[in-house]
């Protein structure tokens, strides 16, 4: 896959939040790539900046957050668009939002407006991005070409949008999509709402789908269903997925490549098998050790020592050195390590691997 040009390149991204207490560097020099049709897993503890990364890529950060440095390059055809430089509310950004990059949010209950029907909320996106675009064919091809927009053609447009919406709802396994169109979010169960959310994400054939903890709010059986559905949808729609979670088990199941994040930076990135079999970063190793195994002899779980440093008061040097069992005094607590390649497609930001791995 590495031979393909990346679809999305995040380089040196810095996102700061300003609050009364001071500035929080939520993302502090983050770099990674997303290649076409891959599933990139982003894993890390809560508060490490996973969700902020997702919101930055879509340029929908809250008012007190700001991209202060770095680029988010999105490839559309031959051109590379730097999302970090686009006006968040401008036309160029809005043409990407939902159409090229779509997102599935963590909590489907609060992510839908309670006052509007599911059909309305999904349909408005289809109407916005697909109406009047002859290329709406996409994959899979649409049954009917979109009608011409316009006031006189309103009933035809409405019908077409409803058809498209119920088609996509059917695609994600909604039992009676035509009725769901008129349902409100509170009429649906949690699993149904997340399916509707996925349908909304898929509705315009995005090239990148960002899924931010899409199964966290669901119980275990529903989790498995939703994961299976997402895998199948990825195969059908040939899109790249950025899968954000704190759950290593889900990452192992879903991802092709993994980015491990710690406090707004990449700690380690590797293909999923390499990461689980040969974790290099002490943080990754500790994360994997802290997950209970379902096979083999019973072992005591080893938690990661210490606590995440306060975002207001970041340690100097490598941010993990305060909790790292292998920290090198005079080095790890002084300078921050850059990503160091250790194998094909495997890089780690750790001083243990600097100078050819002189640990």
């Amino acid at each position, binding site marked *: 896959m590495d031979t393909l040009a990346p679809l999305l390149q995040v380089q040196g991204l810095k996102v700061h939040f300003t609050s009364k207490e001071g500035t929080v560097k939520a993302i502090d020099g983050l770099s990674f790539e997303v290649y076409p049709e891959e599933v990139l897993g982003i894993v890390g503890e809560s508060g490490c900046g996973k969700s902020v990364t997702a*919101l930055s890529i*879509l340029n*929908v950060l*809250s*008012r007190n957050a700001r991209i202060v440095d770095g680029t988010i390059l999105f490839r559309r055809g031959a051109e590379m668009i730097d999302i970090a430089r686009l006006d*968040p*509310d401008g036309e160029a*950004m*809005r*043409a*990407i*939002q*939902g*159409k090229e990059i*779509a*997102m599935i*949010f963590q*909590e489907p209950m*609060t*992510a*839908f*407006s*309670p*006052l*509007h029907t599911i059909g309305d909320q999904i349909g*408005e*996106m289809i109407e*916005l*991005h697909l109406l009047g675009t002859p290329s709406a064919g996409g994959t899979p091809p649409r049954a009917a070409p979109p009608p011409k927009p316009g006031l006189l053609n309103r009933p035809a447009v409405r019908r077409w949008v409803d058809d498209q919406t119920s088609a996509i709802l059917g695609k994600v396994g909604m039992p009676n999509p035509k009725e769901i169109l008129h349902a*409100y979010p*509170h009429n649906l169960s949690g699993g149904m709402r997340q399916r509707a959310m996925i349908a*909304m994400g898929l509705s315009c054939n995005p090239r990148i789908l960002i899924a931010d903890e899409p199964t966290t709010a669901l119980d275990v059986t529903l989790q498995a269903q939703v994961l299976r559905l997402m895998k199948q949808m990825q195969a059908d729609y040939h899109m790249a997925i950025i899968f954000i979670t704190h759950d290593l088990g889900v990452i192992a199941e879903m991802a092709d490549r993994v980015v491990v994040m710690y406090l707004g930076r990449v700690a380690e990135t590797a293909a999923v098998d390499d990461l689980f079999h040969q974790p290099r970063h002490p943080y990754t190793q500790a994360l994997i050790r802290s997950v209970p195994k379902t096979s083999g002899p019973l072992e005591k779980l080893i938690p990661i020592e210490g606590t995440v440093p306060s975002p207001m008061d970041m340690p100097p040097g490598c941010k993990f050195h305060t909790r790292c069992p292998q920290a090198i005094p005079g080095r790890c607590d002084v300078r921050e390590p850059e990503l160091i390649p250790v194998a094909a497609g495997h890089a780690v930001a750790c001083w243990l691997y600097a100078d050819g791995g002189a640990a």
Partner: protein
Amino acid sequence: MLAYILKRLFLIIPVLLVVSLLSFMIIQLPPGDFVDAYIRGERGRGRTISSEEEASLRVRFGVNDPFLVQYGRWIAGIVRGDLGVSLALKESVSKIVAERLPLSALISLLSFLLVNLIAIPIGMLSATRQYSVADYFFSILGFLGMGVPQFIFAVVMLWGIYSFTGQASVGATSPEFVGQPMSMAKFLDLISHLWLPALIAAATGTAGTIRIMRANLLDEMEKPYVIVARAKGLPRRKLLYKYPFRMALNPFVVGLAGVFPGLVSGELMVSITLGIPTLAPVLLQALEMQDVETAGSLVFIISTLSVVGILVSDILLAIVDPRIRYE
């Protein structure tokens, strides 16, 4: 839904009975009665009233009757649609209400419209441009509006009018229309007089409403569903009206309930200061003089409107918010 509304309408009857009994009781709680207040007033005008006269007045006005007898007499009248007689104004309460209610209602409605027409757009501006110059300007103006008592505002306006026109009161109509039947010309004249009291009455409400609208909208704009809507690529103006604005309006629908009783009892300060013959001053006077039947009847009307107002706002809330369903 229809069954629910009918049930609620039916429930109004016992509620009103209890409210009327309680208010009738409270009105009579202070020591003395209407005759005492009447004698005090006459004495103030230099007329002495003999004890025989006083006794005959007590019999005539029925103030010596037991409480329940007085209440029964009054409520029996209410049921027949007779609101009683105002002892102070020596007129039937129905006639007073008929004369003054349109004015009260007109001022209240005008000020309600003004409040919302001014406050909602400004609140939206303040929220969407938080911490801008405009936001600070309207915030300061808003706090001033809330801080300045209504009667001060009214007195200052009155002084302004006096220095421009030489008139010392606003009144409800121009002299040539007094006592005339309602006509288009009279109605326009009314409006031209009433916009000022309505504006004064609206000042406080506008200030509060701006703050409420701003806070509601700021709250809503950071909700996940709004971020989702932004992530869809919706044009921002459309997004604002369709999602957070709609949600931020819900508290206003609830607040609609308060408009109904205000139709009768609102704008007391303005009416007294500017000398506008609305119902609120009559109610105040009736309470001061322990004119039990008049006060009771007006409180009864206000309670009825309150209960109806709550019902109407409940029904509207169910219409604008699909999560609310009444069984």
